[in-house]
């Protein structure tokens, strides 16, 4: 096992990316992720890589297109308003099936919002985000160590499925310093990059594009091909953590930073004899529908409690999984405010009173 070190999230994720083989970073300053470009600007030249401070997020994501065409592992990072600007590029990357890794250290919105941690970009991240019929895998770390390790996973997923991958953190994960062990390089098998543009030497010339004009059904066929890929990702790449779920009567569903508050409240509730557990999606797309659905069908589980740093976005996926089998409650804070463990405990007690006691 590697050495235990202390690092800030925004800097540790860079080391994760470099271990994954990323040598190209293009980005534009925005709080709360400014440590990422700062770190990359001094670290990438040390490993023979290339850092460019782009003129905008729009340019950043399109520089990634260029590096991805050349077959290189490339990434960018930003925070919510900047990620909105990148959506055109992400849609194009999805259409052209080019790999890319995009880190979003989410801040409060809409608009310029504020610079405090939030999870209010859930819809944007999990529903494609840009125009057209597509999805991108979304990884949601809950600690600096997991964030760092997920960078390796993100680059693998991007190359295996030829898709942009979103790593969805928040201002806290980026700014927080935590102990961690750096990841090992991955040993997953990456398919040969037989699409890249390096000059048509001893082969036919190649084209990378998202435009499909003719025949009339060309684009539909391409969309169906993409959908097959998404189906495969749904089958193979769902990741989640279950926490004290075996005897749980109330199941919290929460991700990222808010799931850590949940763990404190779950401990407090269990000290009072209340059986609460948690499903923590580590991939937001694909969402772990199956485990949530299976739990909803058991007699033991009385209710679900969705906890997010927004006004209820993932709750739509929780409800899709629960399919009306049980009540789904919500607790959260938004606009850059953090959930409070005591407030959450109160909410758990409220759910217990409504769903567990009267039926006992």
């Amino acid at each position, binding site marked *: 096992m590697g050495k235990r070190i202390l690092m800030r999230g925004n800097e540790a994720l860079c080391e994760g990316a470099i271990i994954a083989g990323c040598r*190209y970073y*293009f980005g534009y300053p925005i709080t709360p992720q400014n440590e990422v470009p700062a770190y990359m600007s001094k670290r990438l030249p040390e490993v023979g890589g*290339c850092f*460019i401070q*782009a*003129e*905008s997020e*729009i*340019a*950043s994501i*399109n*520089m*990634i*297109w*260029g*590096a*991805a*065409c*050349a*077959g*290189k592992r*490339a990434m960018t990072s930003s925070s919510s308003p900047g990620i909105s600007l990148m959506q*055109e*590029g992400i849609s*194009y990357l999805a259409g*052209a099936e080019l790999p890319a890794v995009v880190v979003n250290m989410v801040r409060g919105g809409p608009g310029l919002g504020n610079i405090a941690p939030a999870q209010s970009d859930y819809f944007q991240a999990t529903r494609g985000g840009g125009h057209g019929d597509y999805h991108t895998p979304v990884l949601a770390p809950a600690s600096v160590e997991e964030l760092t390790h997920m960078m390796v996973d993100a680059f693998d997923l991007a190359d295996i499925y030829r898709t942009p991958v979103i790593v969805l953190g928040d201002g806290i994960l980026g700014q927080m310093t935590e102990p961690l062990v750096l990841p090992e390089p991955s040993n997953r098998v990456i398919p040969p990059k037989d699409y890249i*543009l*390096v*000059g*048509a*030497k*001893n082969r036919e*010339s*190649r*084209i*990378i*594009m*998202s*435009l499909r004009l003719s025949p009339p059904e060309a684009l539909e066929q391409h969309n169906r091909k993409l959908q097959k890929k998404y189906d495969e990702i749904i089958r193979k790449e769902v990741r989640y953590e279950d926490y004290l779920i075996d005897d749980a009567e109330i199941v919290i569903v929460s991700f990222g930073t808010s799931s850590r508050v949940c763990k404190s409240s779950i401990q407090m509730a269990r000290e009072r004899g209340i059986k609460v557990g948690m499903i923590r999606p580590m991939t937001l797309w694909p969402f772990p529908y199956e485990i949530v659905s299976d739990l909803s069908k058991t007699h033991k589980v009385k209710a679900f409690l969705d906890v997010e740093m927004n006004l209820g976005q993932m709750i739509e996926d929780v409800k899709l999984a629960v399919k009306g089998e049980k009540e789904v409650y919500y607790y959260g804070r938004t606009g850059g405010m953090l959930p409070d463990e005591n407030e959450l405990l109160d909410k758990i007690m409220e759910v217990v009173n409504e769903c567990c006691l009267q039926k006992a």
Partner: protein
Amino acid sequence: MNVVYKRPESLKKRRMHYCPGCGHSIIHKLLASVIDELGIRENTVIVGPVGCSVLIYNYLDCDGTESAHGRAEAVSTGLKRALPDRVVVCYQGDGDLAAIGTSETIHAANRGENFTVIFVNNAIYGMTGGQMAPTTLIGQKTKTSPFGRDPKIAGYPLRMCELLSQLEAPSYIERVSIYDVKNVIKTKKAIKKAINYQMKGLGYSFIEVLSMCPTNWGVSPVNAASWVKEHMTEYYPLGVFRNHGVSEDSK
């Protein structure tokens, strides 16, 4: 039989979708000829724009990629940084380069990115059916300037060569045209020089080509060529605006 003229090998044997009298087909052919002459077909990647020439990758027999509208120079930046020993040619129209992509253009030029831009200026949006371009001349009628471009409403046509000449980094900036044979030959020479400078690592090179769009101008191909000569070259003077490679020319 002695062959004196033939299709460049870097040009695919495919019928082009361009209108009769359009300049793109000529400029594609010139680019293909230059690629042949420099022997770089297997070493070149073409970055296309959004606009009429979005399908350039269907005609040039080199590796090629699309780019989102206006983003060709950001794409070219990522590509060339990843492949410094390949030739990257970025082909853009006036809407792509001088309106929606102005920021990407100026900043790629200002960083001195080592690729070559071919900027086709035909003073109109062709693909979308003839709207006013940033380069539409004063008084020129288009779908969105039906009474003629009025500078009080729409400002003045952008002179990109002059604008980019204010920057330190670009190595070569020239404006050429293809309204007659003599100028077609000059255009080919300019493209060849620019790509040569790129291969020598001199940095950003920019060739603006004044070109024809008879369909959206509503004139015949012959009259379109005359219009370029009489009206466009008046506002957009031809010539070399920057040449950091003079000392290289003799080598």
